[in-house]
């Protein structure tokens, strides 16, 4: 163990974005996504403006495009769906490149998903790149997310490495005794390993609970939430979604 990293998605700071309180960043990201979603799909320039805001933030947070771009692959399943829409949707059809007859509504819908999805995901990726996961949880706690959710997420973060390391050790032990599964019916040993890890994890849960009770746990986790942010910090952070909202409103007025 010890090789793992608790913040695999975060990019080391410092930067002005890293220094912000996590809960302010969570709220700003959420509002920014709302502003993007509410932008009319016909106003192409508005999406350029939103992308410009994100690019400026990425520069401020020292998050390079080569770090963000591979992570956007998360969007792939949604994009596949979006790419099918021009072929599958009904209604008026337009000729594209002189070869394809695609649905006009489908093209608009695909563009809508592509633009809003990419901008929303990029905003989220910027948030996690400039906020260690632990701080994100503290931010959520500060925003009054029920402690049971933040506790479960926190335990998951803490033990995922421990359990992964246990699985790796068991795999090495299996392979060391000549296990070389090539066919589905040889998967029994793998299933047994997963079963054994499940039982051990369950037992570990009991031991952890014992350790918690021994240190005064009576059913609720003590607060570890982020410290409050000053009004000036809130104002600075909220400038981002406010700019996006202004863009959205302007976009509606230009197409209206």
């Amino acid at each position, binding site marked *: 163990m010890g090789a793992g990293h608790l913040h695999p998605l975060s990019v080391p700071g410092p930067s002005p974005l890293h220094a912000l309180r996590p809960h302010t960043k969570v709220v700003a990201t959420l509002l920014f996504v709302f502003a993007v979603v509410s932008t009319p799909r016909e106003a192409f320039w508005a999406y350029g403006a939103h992308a410009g805001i994100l690019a400026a933030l990425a520069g401020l947070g020292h998050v390079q495009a080569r770090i963000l771009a591979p992570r956007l692959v998360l969007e792939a399943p949604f994009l596949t769906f979006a790419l099918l829409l021009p072929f599958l949707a009904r209604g008026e059809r337009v000729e594209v490149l002189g070869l394809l007859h695609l649905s006009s509504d489908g093209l608009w819908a695909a563009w809508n998903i592509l633009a809003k999805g990419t901008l929303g995901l990029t905003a989220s990726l910027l948030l996690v790149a400039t906020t260690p996961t632990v701080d994100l949880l503290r931010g959520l706690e500060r925003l009054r997310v029920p402690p049971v959710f933040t506790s479960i997420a926190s335990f998951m973060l803490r033990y995922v490495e421990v359990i992964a390391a246990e699985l790796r050790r068991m795999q090495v032990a299996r392979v060391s005794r000549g296990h070389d599964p090539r066919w589905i019916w040889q998967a029994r040993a793998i299933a047994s390993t997963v079963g054994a890890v499940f039982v051990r994890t369950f037992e570990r849960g009991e031991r952890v609970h*014992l350790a918690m009770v021994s240190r005064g746990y009576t059913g609720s986790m003590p607060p570890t939430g982020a410290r409050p942010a000053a009004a000036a910090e809130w104002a600075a952070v909220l400038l981002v979604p406010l700019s996006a909202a202004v863009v959205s409103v302007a976009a509606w007025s230009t197409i209206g």
Partner: protein
Amino acid sequence: MSRGSLRVQSLAYAYPSGRQALYGINLDVEPGERVAVLGPNGAGKTTFVLHLNGVLGGGLGQVEVGGLLVERANLREVRRRVGIVFENPDDQLFMSTVGDDVAFGPANLGLRGQALDVCVDIALARVGMTHGRERPPHQLSAGERRRVALATVLAMDPELLVLDEPSSHLDPRARRELAEVLRGLDLTLLMVTHDLPYALELCERALILDEGVIVADGPTRDILRDDDLLHAHRLELPTGFDPTRV
């Protein structure tokens, strides 16, 4: 009774399955004393330890820590007084960062804000781990994790420190560093271990617990010199280790 003393009287306990684990334990530990609890696997050592802070109970007999009876009404104070460091630090360190983990106990006692921060800093300084406050536990070495686990209970200002197999999985250097930290603590110490040389190094008194009863109690050196006694209770010194020469 004064701070840090332990009195166990006729403690007997059977698990709900019916298996009797303790058959009537009597023990007096003076404040500041360091006592090694030796015994083979399945002797009842862990069951005994879990009675000291009231995690297990409901059997016969009674336990007093610093004059306070271990019973439901006193559990909060008892768990402050008795700090248990479990064998596997991965079970003890369950929060995302070292600092949050050390803060868990005192926060449960009601400490908040600046006072909690200071408490965490002091506990980490006592085990030489101030630099690890923001680190996730799984990034620490085995020795560091053990010392942080110790800090998590020191932060609660305990009177009686109970260590379950403190030297297991430690390399010689981490073992020595932990011993140095433990020697520097002015606390009553109860150390459950199979590591007999470590028991001799740190504890002036030892007792052997086997099949739910204390079968020997005396100076650690005398107990470790008694080959027949050790053999009868499945305890062994490392080959070539001579307790009279330490």
